[in-house]
């Protein structure tokens, strides 16, 4: 549909997505193991449980970031020429970080969770050494630098091509008298906005990571726990949000091929993305609603912005998609289009329990129960990851085939069923006051744990089908 | 290739420099360096004559065969020296409990001899229950003061007038061996560290 001005770096991205698909599967297996252990179906050492939990968290967030930025890189590459070497350097740094993180967890025994909440990394109660914690933080720094590199390349090319940050964000259209025909495409707007906030998140993240590292080596350099927490959640929140906001570019670029109509940068779209930029930066205190030492205004801002964040998503991205679907005459369904639409649906649906949990009064009895993994698994598993699999399916799509074959259909069905069941069990457990991140559950909680384990198996099965068909598609495309 | 070699050379030279400048990554601050140097070199401390809270004269380091533990204070200090006084009293009790009371002398030495006359020293001693037996409060002569501070590596600076801080200095307990060597410097509330250092010098 959209004729590329430039050629995206297809090989690099395809390779990365294969890697990401395999890692996603592995992380899902980790999740399955944790749910099975909580349900008393298997027995694993509690220290190992928390190591797996740390690996699952860091691995899933990292992979979401990786897939998100790969999608962004691929499609931004249609509009501006991007240096291929930068992507390979990124991948090298990223994988170095992954090796450090995995080493710190499974060799060094680090199990301080992906949130490395100060001062837990330095106070393991004898379960891991300061060196292991330092290695973990160092791994994060590598990954941070890797992302910074890609974002800087994207930022400078977008600014060069569209004149300024405002130009790439379509500000003339959003706030001036610019015309929609002259506005940059949705991909550029989304890429610019997510690049901006992710760079800010990474800079703050680097600050708190290095401070924690210094503290590990020289305990005299203490760190204020609340300030560190603010910075960690700012960084973590921005990073995981960026992964979704970057992945949605696949929807803007791929679905028009199915809808027979381009996704346009309209005035609401342009305004929405500037709002998204501000909201992503301002909403992080909704992770700190139980920190009563925080100033009240920050918590109120967290609650209010948490609600407002839903508006650009529901009223712009989701709403536009629904209108486009209804208007289209030629829309057809294959694995790619089904997963991409599922991704937007999952993201939108997941925002409901998220916003509810973002209310201080509700948060008081829901925070850090399984409600929390419940809502974010909806917009990750059925959102970001669904979009990722959809993008992968599109990358290897055979243009001669239209529609879902039986394997695609089976994969989609079990993934959807598994994902819905799996996340519902979390939400129900959360409502029943089951805490999150507990290695051992009491028998009263076993029912949901065991059902969730079964649903997890379905998710893994579906994902396995997606990855296998992607790998086969790569081979077929090569031989074609 | 040339650029790579040049960068590598700078990287190695820079790392070596950094390693040297931090005593092998062990001391980033002057205070850390001071403690590390004392631990490695155990320099001799020349003798100074002090005036104690009882008005008598006493040498620092003291009688041969006795270890000495010294901290520096000024009695008009509103904050840290007062808690250091409490710490010193506790250290004295611990030393006696360990049965080392007759083998060690504890000094709190004022670095403000202009203000801290014998009556100030005595009042400070009374406040923190220093009876002069094991632990005494003392002051050097005004002339000896710079040399004394230099010998111990103590830096005293005028405090912030807004916050009632008269002076600020690197507060610590200095352990001197019976042979007159400065062998260890520890925090004033690091009782285990102080006792351990004391036992090391006595053994």
């Amino acid at each position, binding site marked *: *549909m959209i004729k590329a001005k430039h050629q995206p770096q297809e090989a690099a991205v395809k390779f990365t997505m294969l890697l990401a698909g395999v890692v996603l599967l592995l992380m899902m297996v980790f999740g399955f193991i944790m749910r099975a252990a909580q349900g008393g179906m298997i027995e694993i050492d509690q220290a190992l449980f928390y190591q797996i939990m740390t690996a699952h968290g860091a691995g899933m967030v990292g992979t979401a970031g990786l897939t998100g930025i790969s999608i962004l890189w691929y499609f931004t590459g249609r509009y501006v020429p991007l240096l291929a070497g930068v992507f390979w350097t990124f991948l090298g740094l990223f994988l170095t970080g992954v090796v450090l993180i995995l080493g710190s967890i499974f060799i060094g025994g680090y199990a301080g969770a992906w949130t490395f909440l100060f001062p837990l990394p330095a106070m393991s109660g004898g379960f891991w050494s300061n060196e292991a914690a330092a290695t973990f933080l160092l791994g994060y720094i590598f990954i941070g630098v890797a992302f910074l*590199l890609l974002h800087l390349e994207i930022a400078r090319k977008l600014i060069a091509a569209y004149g300024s940050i405002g130009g790439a964000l379509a500000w003339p259209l959003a706030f001036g008298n610019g015309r929609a025909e002259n*506005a*940059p*495409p949705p991909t550029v707007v989304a890429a610019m906005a997510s690049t901006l906030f992710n760079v800010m998140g990474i800079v703050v993240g680097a600050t708190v990571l290095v*401070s924690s590292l210094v503290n590990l080596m020289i305990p005299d350099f203490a760190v204020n726990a609340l300030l560190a927490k603010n910075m960690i959640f700012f960084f973590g929140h921005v990073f995981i949000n960026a992964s979704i906001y970057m992945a949605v570019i696949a929807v803007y670029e791929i679905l028009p091929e199915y809808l027979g109509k*381009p996704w346009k940068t309209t005035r609401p779209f342009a305004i929405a993305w500037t709002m998204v930029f501000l909201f992503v930066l301002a909403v992080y205190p909704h992770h700190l609603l139980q920190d009563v030492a925080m100033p009240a205004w920050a918590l109120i801002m967290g609650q209010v912005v948490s609600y407002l964040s839903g508006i650009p998503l529901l009223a712009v991205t989701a709403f536009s998609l629904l209108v486009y679907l209804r208007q289209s005459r030629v829309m057809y369904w294959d694995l790619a289009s089904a997963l991409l639409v599922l991704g937007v649906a999952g993201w939108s649906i997941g925002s409901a329990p998220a916003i509810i949990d973002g209310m201080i009064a509700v948060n008081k009895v829901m925070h850090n129960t399984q409600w929390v993994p419940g809502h974010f698994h909806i917009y990750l598993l059925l959102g970001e990851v669904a979009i990722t699999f959809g993008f992968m399916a599109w990358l290897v799509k055979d243009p001669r085939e239209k529609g879902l074959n039986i394997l695609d259909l089976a994969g989609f069905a079990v993934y959807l069923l598994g994902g819905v069941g799996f996340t519902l069990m979390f939400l129900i457990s959360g409502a029943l006051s089951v805490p999150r991140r507990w290695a051992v559950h009491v028998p009263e909680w076993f029912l949901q744990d065991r059902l969730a384990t079964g649903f997890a198996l379905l998710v893994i099965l579906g994902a396995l089908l997606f990855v296998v068909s992607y790998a086969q598609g790569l081979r077929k495309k090569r031989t074609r | 290739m*040339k*650029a790579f070699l040049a960068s590598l050379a700078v990287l190695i030279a820079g790392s070596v420099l950094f390693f040297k400048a931090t005593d092998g990554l062990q001391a980033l601050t002057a205070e850390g360096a001071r403690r590390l140097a004392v631990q490695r070199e155990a320099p001799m401390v020349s003798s100074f004559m002090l005036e104690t809270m009882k008005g008598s004269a006493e040498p620092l380091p003291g009688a041969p065969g006795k270890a000495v533990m010294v901290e520096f204070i000024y009695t008009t200090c509103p904050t840290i020296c007062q808690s250091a006084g409490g710490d010193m009293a506790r250290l004295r009790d611990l030393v006696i409990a360990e049965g080392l009371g007759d083998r060690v002398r504890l000094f709190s030495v004022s670095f403000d001899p202009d203000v801290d006359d014998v009556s100030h020293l005595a009042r400070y001693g009374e406040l923190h229950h220093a009876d002069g037996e094991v632990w005494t409060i003392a002051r050097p002569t005004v002339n000896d003061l710079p040399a004394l501070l230099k010998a111990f590596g103590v830096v005293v600076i005028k405090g*912030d007038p807004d916050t009632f801080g008269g002076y600020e200095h690197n507060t610590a307990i200095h352990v001197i061996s019976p042979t007159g060597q400065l062998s260890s410097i520890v925090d004033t509330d690091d009782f285990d560290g102080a006792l351990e250092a004391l036992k090391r010098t006595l053994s």
Partner: protein
Amino acid sequence: MKPPSYLVAILVVGFCFALRIPLEADPVSHILVQLPLLAWSGVLITPNGTGRRSEWNRGGVATLLVAFFTIIFWMLPRSIDAVLSSPTMELAKFITLPFGVGAPLAIGWARAHPLLRGIIKAEVVSMLGVLAFLYIHAPVRICNAYLVSDQHRLGYGFLFLALGLSVFWIAPLFIVHTKRAVMPTKTPATA
């Protein structure tokens, strides 16, 4: 008429030397005024295009590393303390900041890839944040020569510098450069 830059450099160094006692009395002016000025004097004496062709310094990496390590050395609190008690260290400061930081930075920066520049800028902001974080919250005195309250002020100095530099570096990106906007700001042709 602009005075030649080496003259400015001499004036800057002279200023730093003549006023070294008051400048060094406060860590904020010592670290955030005197040290940067000395480094700047090194930038001033470096003619444009110095070492532009040297194979040894391709991409400016080697000289940037020289500057990096010199800065790291002067970031050590004990180096700052040593300056105040040792004339040799004071002399070393007046030599190494212009020649070990300013000049190599100027040479390296001119040749650095835009991405490397971007990374360095981001890292500078991060590291100033780290310094701010550590100095504001350190429960111990970091420099023997300075008060704890000075240390806190220095921490806030680092913080404001970090914020100032971020604005200084990001704000121009919002200004539209019409000359740079060579590409049509339109969606590429749709089929």
